[in-house]
C-alpha cells in the first residue's frame, strides 16, 4: 500500500539508488519492490538498471523474480546493460539443480527481445527443450516463438528439435504447450510447421485426457483446424472428443462442441450424425445458462452460426433463450436477436408472448429493440401479423411522450402497413398510431409518419391539415423526410385535388431550390408529371396492391460458403464480431473453403442431404435483401418497383424523364 501514490521525485530516485547499493539485504529487497511499484504506475525507473541487476547476486528467488520482471521491462531500452545479465541466465540454466530456477531463467531469457542477445540463447534453449524435467520442457517450448518473433533467421535448428519432440514427447502438458507454441510460430511466419501423422494425432487425443484444462483447449482448438482424411478418422477423433462435453470448464466443453460439429461434415453415417447431435445439444444448452455472464455472452454470439448450420440442435428450444429479469443487457440483446432468428411459423406465437413481456422493461433501448423484433416477426410470417399488430397497438396506447420506443413503433407500423395495408383496420390500429404521430422526432420515424398520412389520407381525420403542418416545416426536415413528404403530399393531392392545390404549390416552391439534388430532382419530376398527366402520377405514387412478398427477410447472418471456416474459428474474436478472421485481421491469409457444398443439418430432413436448393434460396434471399435495403432507405421506391413489375408501359414514362 505504502508503495503507491508517491511520485518518484529526483530525490527519490537517488534514495532508491542508495538503498539498492546498500549492504543490508532487507533494505535492498525493499528498494527493489519499490522500483517495481513505480514501474507499475508507469514511472520511468530505467536509470537504475545497473544497480538493480547487481542485486541478482543474492540467491533469493522472490527477489530474483522481481529483478527479472524489471529486466524484461527495460531490456530493449538498455541492450548493452542487459548483456551483463546473460551470464547469470546461462549459469542458472546450466548449473542449477532446481528445475524451478532453470525454468524461470529460460522463461525470462526469452522475454528480453534484444536481437543481438538471442544468439547466446540458442544453446541453453536447446538444452532446456531436452531437459529431463517436464516442467522445464514445457517452459522451454514456449520460449521458441519468443525468439522466433525477434530473430527468425537463427531458429531453423530449434524448429527441427520441436518437430522431433512432437513425435516423441510423452508428457501431456508439454505436448499441449508444444502445439500452441508451434501454432504461434505458424501465425508469425505464415508457414505450416506442424506436420501431423496418424501417430501424432493419436498422441494428441491421448494428451487431451491427461493435461490441464488450458492444454485441452489448445489441442482441441488445433484439431478444429485439421481436416481428417476420411470418415473413419473423423469418427475416431469425435469419439475421443465426446467425453470432453462433460468437462466443468465451459471453454473445454465449447471447444469440444466445435471439434465435433466440424468433423460431422466428414462422416458418412447419417444415423451416427443424428445421435451425435443429440449428445451435443444438451451440453451446449448448459453453457447458455453458465453463471459467468461474460462467458455466456461469447457463447451466445456464436449461436447464430450454429443455428444456421445446425438448425437441428435447437429444435423446439426457443425457451432457453428467454431473458431473465436480472441479466445484464448485453446478454438480453443477444437473446432477443437469437429469438427472432429461431422464430418460425410454428413457434411465433410463443415468441411474441414472450416479447410482449419485455415491452415492460425499463431500458428504452431494449424496448426499442423488442419492438423492432416484433415488427420483423410480423413482416416475416403472415400468420403473426394479427397478433403483432395487437401487441404494438396496445403498447401505443400508453405512449405519452416522444420516447425511443415510440420512434421504433412508428417505423415498424409503417413496414407492417406496407406489407399488408389491410392491417390498418385491425384493432383500430391506424387510429391509435395516428394519435401518437406527433411524437415522431427522428428522420426515420417522421418519414414513416409522412408515409402513413399520404397512404391513409382518406381514413385519417384532418389529414390535409396534418400535411400542411409538415410542409410548413419542410426546410428544416432531414432529406429522408423531405423525399417522403414530396411523395406523400402528391398522393394526398391526388386524393383531395381541390383542398391540396395550394399546399402542393407551396411545397414545390420550397423544394425546387433545395440544395439536395435528390430532393430537387424529385420535385421537378412530380411537378412536370402533374402538369402533363396526373393519371401517370397516380400509378406512380399510389400503391394499392395490398401485400408485399418481398418482405420475408433473410435472417441469416453468415454467407453459406463461409460457414465451415467460421465454425473452425468458433469462440474467437472474429466470430464474436460475426466476421471471418481475415476480415478482421489483415495479416491472416484468406483460407479458401475446399468443400464445394456446405452441409446444413436440419431436423426433418435427412442430415446428410446436401442442401443445394438452400444455396439457391440463399441467392434469392440476397437479392431480396438488396431490394429490401432499398425499401428501407428510400421509402417511395416500393411503388416504383411495383410499378415496374405490373405496369411496364408506365415505367417507360418514368425512365424517359
Amino acid at each position, binding site marked *: *500500500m505504502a508503495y503507491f501514490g508517491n511520485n518518484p521525485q529526483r530525490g527519490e530516485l537517488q534514495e532508491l539508488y542508495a538503498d539498492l547499493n546498500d549492504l543490508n539485504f532487507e533494505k535492498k529487497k525493499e528498494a527493489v*519492490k519499490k522500483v*517495481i511499484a513505480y514501474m*507499475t504506475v508507469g514511472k520511468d525507473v530505467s536509470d537504475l538498471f545497473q544497480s538493480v541487476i547487481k542485486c541478482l547476486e543474492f540467491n533469493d*528467488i*522472490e527477489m530474483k*523474480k*522481481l529483478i527479472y*520482471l524489471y529486466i524484461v521491462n527495460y531490456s530493449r531500452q538498455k541492450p548493452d546493460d542487459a548483456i551483463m545479465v546473460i551470464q547469470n541466465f546461462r549459469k542458472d540454466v546450466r548449473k542449477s539443480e*532446481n*528445475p*524451478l530456477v532453470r525454468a524461470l531463467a529460460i522463461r525470462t531469457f526469452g522475454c528480453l527481445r534484444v536481437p543481438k542477445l538471442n544468439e547466446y540463447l540458442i544453446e541453453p534453449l536447446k538444452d532446456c527443450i531436452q531437459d529431463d*524435467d517436464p*516442467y522445464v520442457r*514445457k*517452459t522451454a517450448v*514456449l520460449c521458441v*516463438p519468443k525468439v522466433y518473433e525477434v530473430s527468425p533467421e537463427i531458429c531453423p535448428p530449434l524448429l527441427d528439435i520441436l518437430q522431433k519432440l512432437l513425435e516423441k514427447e510423452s508428457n*501431456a*502438458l508439454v505436448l499441449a*504447450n508444444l502445439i*500452441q*507454441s508451434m501454432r*504461434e510460430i505458424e501465425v508469425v511466419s505464415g508457414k505450416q510447421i506442424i506436420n501431423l501423422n496418424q501417430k501424432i494425432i493419436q498422441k494428441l487425443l491421448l494428451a487431451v*485426457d491427461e*493435461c*490441464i484444462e488450458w492444454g485441452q483447449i489448445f489441442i482441441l*482448438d488445433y484439431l478444429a483446424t485439421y481436416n481428417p482424411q476420411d470418415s473413419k478418422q473423423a469418427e475416431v477423433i469425435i469419439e475421443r472428443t465426446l*467425453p470432453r462435453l*462433460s*468437462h*466443468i*470448464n465451459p*471453454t473445454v466443453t465449447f471447444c469440444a462442441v466445435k471439434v465435433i460439429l466440424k468433423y460431422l461434415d466428414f462422416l458418412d453415417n447419417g444415423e451416427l450424425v443424428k445421435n451425435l447431435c443429440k449428445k451435443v445439444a*444438451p451440453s451446449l*444448452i*448448459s453453457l447458455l*445458462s453458465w453463471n459467468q*455472464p*461474460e462467458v455466456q455472452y*461469447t457463447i451466445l454470439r456464436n449461436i447464430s452460426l450454429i443455428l444456421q448450420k445446425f438448425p437441428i440442435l435447437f429444435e423446439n428450444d426457443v*425457451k432457453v433463450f428467454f431473458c*431473465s*429479469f*436480472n441479466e*445484464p443487457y*448485453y446478454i438480453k440483446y443477444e437473446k432477443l436477436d437469437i429469438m427472432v432468428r429461431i422464430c418460425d411459423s410454428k413457434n411465433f406465437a410463443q415468441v411474441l408472448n*414472450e416479447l410482449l*413481456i419485455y415491452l*415492460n*422493461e425499463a431500458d428504452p433501448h431494449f424496448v426499442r429493440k423488442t419492438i423492432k423484433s416484433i415488427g420483423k416477426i410480423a413482416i416475416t410470417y403472415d400468420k403473426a401479423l394479427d397478433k403483432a399488430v395487437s401487441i404494438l397497438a396496445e403498447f401505443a396506447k*400508453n405512449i405519452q411522450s416522444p420516447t425511443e420506443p415510440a420512434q421504433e413503433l412508428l417505423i415498424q407500423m409503417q413496414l407492417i402497413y406496407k406489407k399488408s395495408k389491410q392491417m390498418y383496420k385491425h384493432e383500430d390500429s391506424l387510429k391509435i398510431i395516428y394519435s401518437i404521430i406527433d411524437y415522431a422526432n427522428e428522420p426515420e420515424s417522421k418519414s414513416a409518419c409522412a408515409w402513413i398520412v399520404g397512404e391513409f389520407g382518406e381514413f385519417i381525420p384532418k389529414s390535409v391539415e396534418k400535411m400542411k403542418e409538415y410542409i410548413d416545416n419542410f426546410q428544416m426536415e432531414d432529406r429522408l423526410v423531405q423525399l417522403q413528404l414530396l411523395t406523400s403530399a402528391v398522393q394526398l393531392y391526388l386524393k383531395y385535388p381541390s383542398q391540396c392545390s395550394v399546399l402542393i404549390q407551396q411545397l414545390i416552391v420550397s423544394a425546387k431550390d433545395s440544395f439536395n439534388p435528390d430532393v430537387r430532382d424529385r420535385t421537378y419530376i412530380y411537378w412536370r408529371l402533374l402538369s402533363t398527366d396526373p393519371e401517370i402520377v397516380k400509378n406512380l405514387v399510389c400503391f394499392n396492391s395490398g401485400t408485399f412478398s418481398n418482405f420475408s427477410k433473410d435472417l441469416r447472418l453468415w454467407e453459406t460458403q463461409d460457414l465451415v471456416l467460421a465454425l473452425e*474459428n468458433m*469462440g*474467437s*474474436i472474429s466470430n*464474436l*464480431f460475426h466476421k471471418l478472421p481475415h476480415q478482421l*485481421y489483415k495479416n*491472416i491469409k484468406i483460407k479458401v473453403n475446399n468443400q464445394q457444398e456446405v452441409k446444413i443439418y436440419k431436423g426433418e430432413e435427412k442430415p446428410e442431404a446436401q442442401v443445394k436448393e438452400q444455396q439457391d434460396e440463399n441467392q434469392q434471399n440476397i437479392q431480396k435483401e438488396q431490394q429490401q435495403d432499398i425499401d428501407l432507405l428510400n421509402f417511395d421506391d416500393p411503388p416504383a418497383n411495383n410499378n415496374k413489375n405490373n405496369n411496364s408501359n408506365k415505367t417507360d414514362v418514368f425512365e424517359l424523364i
Partner: protein
Amino acid sequence: MISSIVFINHKGEILVYRVYKDDITRSETTQFCAKIVATKENKECPIINIDGTSFIHITIKDIVVLATTKVNVNVAMTLQFLYQLVKVCRAYFGGEFDENCIKKHFVLIYELLDEVMDYGVPQIADADLLKKYIQEGGLKPELMNDVEKLKQLTSQATGATSWRPQNIVYRKNEVYLDVIESVNVLMSVKGTILKADVAGSIQMKCLLSGMPECKFGMNDKLLMQREPRKPGQTTTDKGITIDDLKFHQCVKLPKFDKERAITFIPPDGQFELMTYRITENINLPFKIMPVYNELGKNKLEIRVKIKSIFEKNLFGTNLAIKIPVPKNTANVSTNSAIGKAKHEPEQQGVIWRIKKYPGDFEALLRCEIDLGSTTNQQPWIKPPISIEFQVPMFTASGLRVRFLRVYEKSGYKPTKWIRYITKAGEYLHRL
C-alpha cells in the same frame, strides 16, 4: 495470444500491469482506462475493440481484470482464464479481492502472473498446486535445496493427476458430500410455468489417506437402465433424467462416456465434484399465487398466497418473498398470519420473511399500498415477484446418492456423511 494482463480500479487507475507480448503499448491501455473504465462503459460489453486491439475484461466488484490482445484469440478461454486468475488471487488472499489487498500483495501477484501465464499462453493456474511452490515472502530454503522434493513437485504439477500429491495421511478417513440444488423458475402472470430447471452441484470434502479410487453413483436413469436387475428385486425407483453433467477434472471422462460410471481420484480437501442440469419432472417446492388489484387512483392491493409442496416433516427455512411496489409508494400496511412483512424502500418492494415454513402449508399476505402523488404519468412497470428459500433434505430434481465407494490399497473404510439442500435460484413469478 494475450499481450498483457492488467488490474484496474473503478477510477481507471492501473494497479497491476504485466506485459507478455511486445505488440501493445502502455498508452493503449491507459486510453482504455480513461475512455471505457472511468466512464463505466465496460459494463456494457465484455469485449471492446479499439484500433485493432481487443480488450477482454471482467469486473469483480470494483476491480476490472483486463486481458489485451491483437490476435484472434479464443475469447471464451481468455474470460475463463481471467476468472481463474481471480480465483487464484482469492485463494491466496483469504477469499478477498479488492483494491487494498491487490496493493498490499502486488509482489505476490506479479509472481503469480509470471507463473500462470507465459508468452500470453495460460499455464498452471490451480491455486492448491501453485501454493506448493509460490508463497508470499519466498519459499522455505529447505524446499529450494531439496532436489528430490522439487522433482516430485514438478512431476506432480505436469502429470496426469496434478490435483493430488502423494503421501497424504489422515488418522480418521472421512468423506462429506453435499448435494445443493438451485431451482430456477419463471412463471407467467397466469401461473403457468414458462421455464424451469434445476442447476445442481455436488460438493465434496475428502479427508482421505493415500491415493483412493472413488466410485460415485446416483439414481441416474441412464445408469440404472444399464445395471443388471438382481433376481427377486423389484425397484420402483426408475431414476431421473439428467439433461447434462459437468465434472471436475479428476473424473475420468472417457469412462463416464462409455459406461456412465463416475470414477475419480479426488483432490485433497474441498472441491466441486460435478454440476448437473435437469429440466424434466421438477418438484417445485413452492407455489406463489399473487393477485393484484388497483383499488383507486392512489391505492393498490396485492395479495400473495404461498403454498409449500413437500412433505410435512420437512421445513423450508429463511424464506424471503419480495413483492415489488411502485416507486412512489408512500405507505404499506401488511397483514399475514406468519412471518414478518415490511416495506423496504431501498429494495423497492415489500419483503415478507418467514424463518421456518412447514411442508404442505398455505399462507397468505395482504398488502395495501398507498401511493404518493407523482408528476410521472408513466404506468408502473411491474417487475416479477421473487422468492428466496432453502429446503434441507429435499431435492427438487429427486436426485439421490446411491453409493460412494472408496478403494485404497491399505483397505480403510472411511466414514461418509451426506446432506441435501434445495435453494431458490431465480424463482420468479411475473406480476
